[in-house]
């Protein structure tokens, strides 16, 4: 894309950043204006993201496209290097897509705080500005191909996230204001410290990486491509011990973010205490950076160490899957239930990443996207439900289906997506992950399959307890979804259906990137023991050609 001089990637990150500033600057009186402004900027970002997706050419040579590279901090060997592969494009698109919905869904989330608003203290403006800030940082960390650049935003995004959780938490079912504030801030602090600790340990590894490269390449560098190439050329050979230590440093941070058992305990609190849109922001957008980084940095920077760690990681992922699902079954709080469900799903993603098969990793990437959409759908509808009833407890609901059928219906679809029902997007990714895992580790694959039964269990139990049965007095007057809420949910559901039936655009985008990763790690898919007719791949594609005719 040399001919394409306009810095598309930077723009995609800058627009929301500018939006954040602009929104924050809106005077206190113009609250609604601020909301619209934020929405506008998020949509602009979406447009840019789509342009990226269009500009991106899956077939092209080289791991990264639309690259930008400028000198930044020479002393640290840091360059401002951006570039996207299929995986990044998919996730950027996801982020840019979700943020407008998050903003719409959170339209009134900050209103509760307006009571003690002053000329200077402008909750609404702050809320939406922070959301946009998070978007900007997430986007750029998806784009960064310089480890240091990535690290900076990987860490920095914690701050706005932290204020979103602690400052604009969920007031539903909180009778005592100060007690609620305490719960919120403790959740926020836990989120921040947990991730900060992870990040700092990663920092040590980042510095170590610099030391290694500086020692062996003469000048220290953080450029992913440069390091990968140097490795390939044999100029860079890390000692086994060093490589493992560095890998662990990186992986720890990502495992906290992802989150992987047993580093998950911050998530339920954070999601439970924050409003639904923010919870979506956490689990559907921010956490993806962790799994994405495993795929892009852990595997490509430290292939040998990754292989060395694979067994342990896979087992942890497996534990996450089952553990998260079982705990989800036992939750009394809707949001915490979704949180534990997410932990289970992240287990699947990590399983797919480290299965080191093309199905596994493509599946994992699709999973990131699909999980983002499905969780968003489920969580946002849950949020609408909670704001209506003013309680997060499952026990406080019942028979909603009768009074608010549309709400119940969308909730059910979100749930079915979460239990990855065939025909909905998550099924595709989940099955790919399972197949990918199974083809190399049959036993793990089978155990992981138990997860789909548990998923059905917690989703259906949730649905039954909240939506079915005799109508409870408290929900009798519950209104059905409003127009704004439908605008939020309908597209998500449509997307779930579309990607469930026709995920090809996504797979086409992702496959080359995955193949590249696998080649870096130098792993091939295990071959089937009976070779049936030609290569199925070709068969599939040429049959496609026919279909096209």
């Amino acid at each position: 894309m040399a001919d394409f001089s306009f810095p598309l990637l930077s723009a995609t990150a800058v627009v929301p950043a500018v939006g954040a500033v602009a929104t924050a600057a809106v005077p206190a009186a113009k609250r609604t204006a601020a909301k619209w402004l934020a929405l506008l900027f998020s949509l602009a970002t979406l447009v840019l993201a789509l342009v990226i997706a269009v500009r991106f050419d899956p077939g092209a040579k080289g791991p990264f496209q639309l690259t930008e590279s400028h000198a930044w901090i020479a002393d640290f060997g840091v360059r401002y290097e951006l570039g996207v592969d299929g995986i990044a494009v998919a996730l950027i698109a996801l982020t840019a897509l979700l943020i407008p919905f998050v903003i719409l869904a959170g339209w009134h989330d900050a209103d509760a705080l307006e009571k003690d608003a002053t000329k200077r203290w402008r909750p609404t403006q702050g809320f939406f500005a922070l959301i946009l800030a998070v978007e900007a940082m997430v986007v750029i960390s998806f784009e960064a191909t310089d480890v240091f650049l990535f690290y900076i935003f990987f860490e920095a995004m914690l701050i706005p996230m932290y204020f979103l959780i602690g400052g604009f938490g969920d007031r539903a079912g909180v009778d005592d204001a100060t007690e609620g504030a305490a719960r919120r801030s403790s959740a926020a602090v836990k989120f921040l410290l947990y991730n900060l600790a992870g990040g700092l340990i990663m920092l040590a590894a980042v510095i170590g990486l610099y030391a290694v490269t500086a020692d062996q390449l003469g000048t220290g560098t953080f450029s992913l491509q440069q390091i990968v190439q140097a490795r390939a050329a044999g100029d860079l050979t890390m000692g086994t011990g060093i490589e493992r230590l560095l890998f662990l440093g990186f992986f720890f941070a990502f495992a906290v973010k992802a989150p992987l058992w047993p580093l998950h305990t911050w998530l339920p609190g954070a999601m439970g205490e924050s409003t639904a849109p923010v919870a979506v922001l956490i689990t559907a957008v921010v956490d993806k950076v962790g799994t994405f980084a495993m795929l892009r940095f852990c595997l490509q920077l430290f292939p040998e160490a990754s292989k060395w760690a694979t067994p342990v990681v896979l087992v942890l992922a497996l534990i996450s899957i089952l553990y998260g699902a079982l705990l989800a079954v036992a939750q009394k709080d809707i949001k915490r239930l979704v949180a534990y469900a997410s932990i289970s799903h992240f287990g699947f993603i990590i399983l797919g990443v480290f299965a080191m098969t093309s199905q596994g990793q493509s599946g994992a990437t699709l999973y990131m996207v699909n999980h983002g959409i499905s969780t968003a759908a489920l969580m946002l509808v849950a949020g609408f439900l909670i704001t209506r009833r003013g309680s997060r407890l499952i026990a406080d609901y019942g028979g909603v289906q009768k009074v608010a059928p549309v709400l119940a219906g969308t909730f059910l679809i979100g749930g079915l997506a979460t239990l990855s029902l065939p025909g909905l997007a998550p099924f595709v990714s989940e099955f790919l992950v399972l197949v990918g895992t199974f083809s190399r580790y049959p036993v793990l694959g089978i155990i992981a399959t138990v997860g789909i039964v548990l998923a059905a269990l917690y989703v259906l139990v949730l649905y039954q307890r909240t939506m079915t049965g005799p109508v409870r007095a408290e929900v009798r007057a519950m209104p059905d979804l409003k127009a704004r809420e439908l605008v939020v949910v309908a597209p998500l559901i449509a997307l779930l259906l579309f990607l469930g039936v026709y995920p090809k655009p996504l797979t086409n985008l992702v496959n080359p990137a995955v193949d590249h990763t696998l080649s870096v790690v130098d792993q091939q898919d295990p071959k089937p023991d009976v070779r049936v007719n030609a290569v199925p791949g070709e068969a599939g594609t040429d049959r496609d050609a026919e279909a096209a005719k």
Partner: protein
Amino acid sequence: MTSVAAVHSLWTMADGAAGSPLAPGGPSRIPAPHIEYAQLAPTLIVLGAAVLGVLVEAFWPRRGRYYAQVLLSVVALAAAFAAVIGLAAGGFGTTKAHIAAMGALAVDGPALFLQGTILLVSLIAIFTFAERRLDPATHGRPVDSFAAQGAAVPGGEAEKAAVKAGFTTTEVFPLALFAIGGMLVFPAANDLLTLFVALEVFSLPLYILCALARRQRLLSQESAVKYFLLGAFSSAFLLFGVALLYGYAGTVTYAGIAEVVSDGAKQIDPALADTMGNDALLLIGGALVVMGLLFKVGAVPFHMWTPDVYQGAPTPVTGFMAAATKVAAFGALLRLLYVALPGLRWDWRPVMWGVAILTMLAGAVIAVTQTDVKRLLAYSSIAHAGFILAGVIATSEDGISSVLFYLLAYSFVTLGAFAVVTLVRDAGGEATQLAKWAGLGRRSPLVAAVFAVFLLAFAGIPLTSGFAGKFAVFKAAAEGGAGWLVVIGVLSSAIAAFFYIRVIVLMFFNEPKADGPTVAVPSPLTMTAIAVGVVVTLVLGLAPQYFLDLAGQAGVFVR
């Protein structure tokens, strides 16, 4: 017998005395010392201004004195800074770097860089000194944060009279200037005597400044007396160390000592050589001198004074001390270790490792349970001293420049933070109890946000100067092979993050108290101070390259 030899040697040396500066045979043959005034300009300007300041105190009419003093100090500091720039531009930082004033002072990269930093910081600090809008005017006259009359008994008749008469302690400005003068010399000192004198020159005025708080005079005086006694105590150790080093090397110039250290004991008088293992002299002496400096930088276990003094001293002074003193002291420490005792590297490195680790951890851990903002910042400054030590230990050019950069970054953050502390006030003056800061973010988001920025910089969150600095020193340490030091540093900064975050939580997430403090609207002076702090913090966080280059070029000591 040995004694005879020794005595004899004295006579003989006195006889054919070519080289000795004090050769007998009448004053006619004493060569006049040759001083490069131009190259010492920064120091001279500041000290000269200080003297002028004293005269102003003596003769200038009282009502105009404040303005005269402020003007004088600002101009002087600006001029001195200009001089530093001039020298640097003249290449004295790099190519023309050399020893001036007959080996007393070095004019080289680190010296100029640090002097520049000190001068800038002091300039800002003077602004906060001069702030007169925060305290309510008494008897219609604006007052600053210093006692009306330092000598008067708190709450006594004399003080009342002084307040009524509208006295203000404008002496603070010359005092500050003297201190700054000493600080300028400190990192440039190229022999142990100059080191000691400079130390005292900047310490003594600080002792007094500490005692001059307008409010809570008891605490202020207590901090002064503590600082003074411990300071004197430590300087005594330093001096004894100097003595021993002199005894070992027979000279106090860094170059001379380094030479002796490198080519062993042959220069030592046999009388010494066979009576005591002269290495012992060297090692003990070195250790004691280093201890004197560690006291100034507030490294564990010589940090006790820090929290008490930081808390009791008038906040502007605290900010000034916290920022400038650290810069000067680390400068001196660097020069001592890199120029005088490089031969001892293998002896002091492990020890400094221990000190660094202790300092980082102790500072971070103790800070966790602090309840007073100023004490909190004091402990955080201790932790930071530990981080900087990690860079010092690297014993590489990278190490030096990283430390220089860190000092630049850190000093501005600190100054800004303390400046913010001066704004948050209630009836009893500054409200430094953390509990009172609850919900500040609601009352005045701007101030809270600014303070949050400083805290995040302290915590080393990316995109702030704190992160760049921390990364620089840890990188240097890692390249110096101190990987585990880095890991421990990272862990302790994780602990440190905890209490910085705590303050942010307090400010933003806790409901404001009814009787909570209010944020006073300061004059442009303090505003500038804070603004500069924020700007530097962000600039050094986002685009540190230029300053890293600067520090990189300045990273070479002249020997």
